């Protein structure tokens, strides 16, 4: 019974902590604007077939590489495909990379970081060296080599970017678990017979949740950029699937004839990355000001 009561007290402390953070976040107008933008973008991605002015892959042969007009608001590409339509469909790739790749990175990073921080000693030394080894490769370069190993395609892009991004979060979680494991509530859990696994999963990781939220929000824009970079190099998402990076890469060839072609997908990319960056900053200030130098 007492354990249950304890959990309730902890829950209450939790709710008020997140409630306070939410109140702090709500006061930040820029953060709210970014949140609204991101929610809208998610809706656009989900309802792309309803919102896009043309079906995906539709080719208007009467307008090849046309500039912006009333028929094609942002112009058309070399196959006569509507650029606005492709940008709308491209948001699906960018957002799902942010979601899926980051989920992979967080799973690996939190798991290894928590193990290293909790056990310390030899386990920590081994995991820390592994983190250091994987962190020695520039992210984009490592992602390129992984794409070479796995081959191109959407799923492989998720895997590559997820597998590249886990070292940062592993380091942060390791440091945090190291501090947390000395706290009384962990000792209490251990005294009442909790196994190591249970302590890590039920007590330590939930206590790192605010940090995880901040780190994830700040990592999503990098993931989106890595996807765009891979697709730009021709190693990521393959045509005819629309990706902002792939569009910019194609547009490069028509810089002289249709300069706006390369500008618009880039603006979509910049705005999305900007929104996530600013939201990440605000979340950090609201949830975990200690992570200032991130």
């Amino acid at each position, binding site marked *: 019974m007492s354990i249950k009561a304890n959990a309730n007290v902890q829950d209450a402390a939790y709710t008020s902590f997140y409630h306070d953070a939410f109140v702090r976040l709500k006061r930040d107008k820029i953060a709210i604007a970014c949140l609204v933008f991101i929610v809208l973008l998610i809706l656009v991605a989900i309802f792309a077939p309803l919102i896009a002015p043309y079906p995906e892959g539709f080719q208007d042969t009467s307008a090849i590489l046309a500039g912006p007009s009333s028929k094609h608001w942002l112009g058309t590409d070399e196959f006569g495909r509507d650029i606005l339509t492709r940008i709308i469909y491209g948001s699906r790739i960018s957002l799902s990379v942010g979601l899926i790749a980051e989920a992979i990175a967080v799973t690996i990073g939190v798991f290894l970081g928590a193990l290293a921080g909790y056990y310390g000693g030899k386990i920590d030394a081994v995991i820390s*060296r*592994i983190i*250091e*080894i*994987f962190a*020695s*490769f*520039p*992210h*984009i*370069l*490592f992602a*390129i*080599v*992984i794409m*070479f*190993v796995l081959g191109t395609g959407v799923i492989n892009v998720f895997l590559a970017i997820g597998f590249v991004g886990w070292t940062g979060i592993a380091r942060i979680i390791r440091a945090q678990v190291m501090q947390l494991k000395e706290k009384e509530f962990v000792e209490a859990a251990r005294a009442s017979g909790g196994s190591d696994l249970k302590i890590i999963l039920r007590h330590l990781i939930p206590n790192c949740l605010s940090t995880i939220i901040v780190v994830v929000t700040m990592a999503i*824009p990098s993931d989106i*950029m890595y996807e*765009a*970079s891979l697709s*730009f*190099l*021709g*190693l990521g998402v393959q045509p005819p699937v629309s990706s902002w*990076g792939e569009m*910019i890469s194609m*547009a*490069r060839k028509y*810089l*002289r004839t249709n*300069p706006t072609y*390369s*500008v618009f997908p*880039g603006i979509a*990319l*910049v*705005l999305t*990355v*900007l929104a996530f*960056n*600013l939201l990440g900053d605000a979340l950090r200030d609201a949830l975990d000001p200690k992570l*200032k*130098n991130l």
Partner: protein
Amino acid sequence: MLKFTLRRLYQTIIVLLGVTLVTFTMVNVVPGDPVAVMLQKKADDATINRIRDQMGLNDPLPAQYFRFLTNAVTGDFGNSYFQKKPVMELILRAFSVTGTLAVLVLAFAITLGVLMGTLAAVFRGKWVDRVIMMISTLGMAAPSFWLAIILQLIFGLTLKWLPISGLRQPSAYIMPSVALGMIYAASLARLTRTNILDAMNQDYIRTARSKGVGEFFVVAKHAFKNAGIPILTYLGTLIKSILGGSVLVETIFSINGLGKLLVEAIMKRDIPIIQGCTVYIAAVFVIANLLIDLTYGLFDPRIRVAGPAKR
């Protein structure tokens, strides 16, 4: 300090071994026979097998790794499948280009970033601060490859001030350096601002002020020097990101550097080059990081005696 140096050296060697192992494992699990790729399917199975034997590709993987490692230590990454030249020769030639570019990017990013960050900190809350922070927020969101194209569009095609590709004249370095360096200048500006503001709240700044030291010297001498450590720490990551980011910028500006060498090798499945480039770039970062760790002492006498607390 000696103990710290030795421990860092030991860790560096372990990490470098790990880097070679990870790279070797990755490129060797790729499906497809490199010899078949190299001979472009023009050879029969017996010939392919004979060449595989000659190249040692039929040996067990641990033996191949050991050979790769012992050769890599002497700077030998094997020969390119297609260019028929030692990989190290190709890497060194490409690195002289990428290295020059990286130094320019670093110089651009640090100069602009530290200057803007200091200005923002000094004029905290004023319009100067707001404008600098706004530009840096935008700068952090613009991917280098898109920025490069926009610069090409404006300064290359429209104004015709700068060449849009190659590196034939010194002015050709400007656009690649700016395109790649902008994002780092932006994050350095933010980092510098935060750290100078932090340092300004410290006791020794109050002491300096109470002694009558002018505001300029307070910032230039005390705050600046103490804001230097986080920036120095960031330098390692910066070098790593620049070497990675050069892949994109080199592709756009047709610069024959390490990044372009790697991307072309990937397109052709030239495994020795992929392997060599990856290990080389990671090694440059690992060694740069070691040197950075060993220079902390110059900034902070406490570290000079005891060694950095972290790591």
